[in-house]
């Protein structure tokens, strides 16, 4: 008998209604038209002026709504990121979501000693290698602000380490037009040519404007470079509630979205149709410590709201964060905060989700934390897939067989169980469900320790397909350029 599928539903989080979406959008437009912004890049200023913006004083710009509409129309609705071997692994569109690490942590928790220490280039290498070996991590970021790289080329050096240690897509950062050009050169060598990189981009540049409403020259230099070269880019400002933005989330979102729309307009003027990943970072500034929180519910809430705005209005794939914490150790707080952001980001279908594995509000990286998050993503994925309802999964025949079968009939013995258990259940690897005695016998390890062991195993066993000697030589030459 052919099984009939019941129309499925996949759990989906909504936090804004249409009226709220439109109200926040209108507020963002009002900021652009009435308040204006500071554009410190002369070329971008000229482009905006030519496009019909009003400039007052030296660099204060007011931007008409029409330009926003044009930019939203010309920016692609889908951004495809490829791995370094040319496979399309990250189609950023619709309900697709992808997780990866973050950039620039000053410290790391040493995997051998458990001590917090300054990050090094070797850490950038290790994080990339770990990402390469984790099935639920889709892209790499450096996770390191290495103390042992020349500071003017720090982003080129961590990029080179990532290239050597993973073949997954890379989200990279840069300081100015100078180092992004070097990173671009390396990326072109990896795939063979500029055209190849344009056709199958494996890098996405992350850059930040300064909230409120300030667009520095070096930031715009990178944005324009990427627009011209058609390298996917995002430009979330730090419109954190209470810090760069007002304390109330609606206002912080309006400001962050306004800043993103400015970036989008300049970007589309510089390279019409080039890929732009939408979305501000709207976390909160903690009112006691003044850190920007990486474990707060606010950030998850604002990015869920942004996902709603994408669906109702913008249509562009969005940038998000998850799997991070304000805790200093990978403790219970870290687990709680990581899971909260991972599952909500997925349920709201944020598209590119970074910062997985950060401790200490993004200042410290942890290989164990990334390893744990990999499993939390798997757990969330299971939940988000919903319940498959059809004749096969309703299992009426199995129920009848067991209920009316010979004495001793149990579901565990039934063929239906054997055939389905791999898909029907979430099968954890690191989350411990063992019975007490066997847990004790195998060392009484907590999750941190199990993640430590697993991370070490992956680092020693993961075979990363190496780059050709030619590419490696090219990278060395670029690193030597001053």
């Amino acid at each position, binding site marked *: 008998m052919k099984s009939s599928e019941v129309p499925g539903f996949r759990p989906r989080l909504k936090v804004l209604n249409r009226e709220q979406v439109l109200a926040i959008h209108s507020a963002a437009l009002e900021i652009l038209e009435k308040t204006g912004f500071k554009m410190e890049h002369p070329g971008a200023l000229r482009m905006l002026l030519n496009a019909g913006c009003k400039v007052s004083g030296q660099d204060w710009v007011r931007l008409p709504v029409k330009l926003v509409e044009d930019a939203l129309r010309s920016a692609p609705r889908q951004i495809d990121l490829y791995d370094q071997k040319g496979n399309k692994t990250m189609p950023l569109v619709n309900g697709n979501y992808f997780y990866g690490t973050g950039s*620039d942590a*000053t410290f790391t928790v040493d995997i051998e000693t458990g001590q917090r220490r300054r990050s090094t280039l070797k850490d950038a290498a290790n994080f990339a290698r770990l990402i390469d070996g984790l099935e639920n991590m889709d892209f790499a970021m450096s996770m390191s602000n290495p103390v042992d790289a020349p500071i003017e080329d720090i982003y080129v050096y961590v990029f080179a380490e990532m290239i050597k240690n993973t073949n997954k897509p890379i989200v990279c950062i840069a300081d100015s037009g100078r180092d992004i050009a070097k990173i671009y050169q390396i990326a072109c060598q990896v795939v063979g040519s500029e055209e190849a990189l344009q056709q199958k981009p494996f890098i996405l540049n992350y850059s930040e404007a300064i909230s409120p409403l300030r667009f*520095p020259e070096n930031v715009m230099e990178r944005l324009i470079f990427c627009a011209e070269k058609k390298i996917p880019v995002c430009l979330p400002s730090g419109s954190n509630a209470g810090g760069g933005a007002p304390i109330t989330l609606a206002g912080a979102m309006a400001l962050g979205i306004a800043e993103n729309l400015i970036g989008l307009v300049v970007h589309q003027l510089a390279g019409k149709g080039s890929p732009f990943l939408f979305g501000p970072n709207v976390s909160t500034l903690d*009112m006691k410590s003044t850190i920007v929180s990486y474990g707060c519910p606010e950030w998850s809430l604002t990015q869920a709201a942004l996902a709603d705005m994408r669906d109702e209005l913008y249509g562009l794939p969005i940038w998000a964060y998850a799997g991070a914490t304000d805790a200093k150790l990978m403790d219970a707080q870290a687990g709680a905060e990581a899971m909260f952001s991972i599952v909500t980001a997925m349920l709201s279908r944020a598209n590119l989700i970074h910062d997985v594995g950060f401790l200490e509000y993004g200042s410290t990286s942890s290989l164990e934390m990334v390893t744990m998050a990999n499993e939390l993503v798997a757990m969330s994925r299971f939940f988000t897939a919903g319940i498959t309802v059809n004749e096969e999964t309703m299992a009426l025949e199995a129920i009848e067989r067991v209920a009316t079968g010979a004495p001793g009939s149990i579901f565990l013995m039934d063929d239906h169980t054997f055939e389905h258990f791999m898909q029907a259940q979430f099968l954890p690897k690191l989350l411990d469900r063992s019975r007490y005695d066997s847990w004790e016998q195998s060392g009484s390890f907590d999750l941190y320790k199990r993640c430590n062991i697993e991370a070490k195993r992956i680092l020693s066993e993961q075979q990363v397909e190496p780059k050709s000697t030619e590419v490696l030589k090219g990278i060395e030459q670029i690193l030597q350029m001053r």
Partner: protein
Amino acid sequence: MNDFKALSEAVNKGDNKTALVEVQKSLDAGSSAEEILNKGLITAMNEVGDKFSKGLIFVPQMLRSAKTMQECTNLLQPFFQEGDITSKGKVLIGTVKGDLHDIGKNLVSMMLEGAGFTITDLGVDIPPEKFVEKTKEVKPDIIGLSALLSTTMPAMAQTIEALQKAGLRDQVKIIIGGAPVTEKYAQQINADSYAPDAGSAVNKAKALLGIS
């Protein structure tokens, strides 16, 4: 005998209207401006600072208190006598060259001001030469350098070198701060102190000048 209890309470609450009324009352009752400042306002702000560092109040409450104190000090300004000690010390502060971030630096300025320091805030993206020039002009006791980006941290070292070359290094204490900055880095670049947050910046500044 004026115990400034009502004034202290108003500063603690950040109730500027009541605080201004209380300052005026004290002046009318014959208290000197210096006494109102030191026994009233600064003592109250020390309490506020203490509560803040113990995590009993939040940043906006602390800043409201600092703002209240500022308004009161403005009211007192015409009444200070020559020789009155009205400042804990002079602080020159700025975000270093290449860095345009100012939230942290502004917060530190506000808190130092609340603690009784006189602040000259140069703003953001300040080249070493500017720090040198202003140091000659303002003659600060302390220079505060801020950087958010690891790529602009070297500008802190350059600023300190420039002060050294200009022969000014020994006349000032230097405190640095910002997200990527560490104690070790402060030692490396010959700064006197490092403050991980705005609250501790006040304590470090006081410690450097040997005041409580």
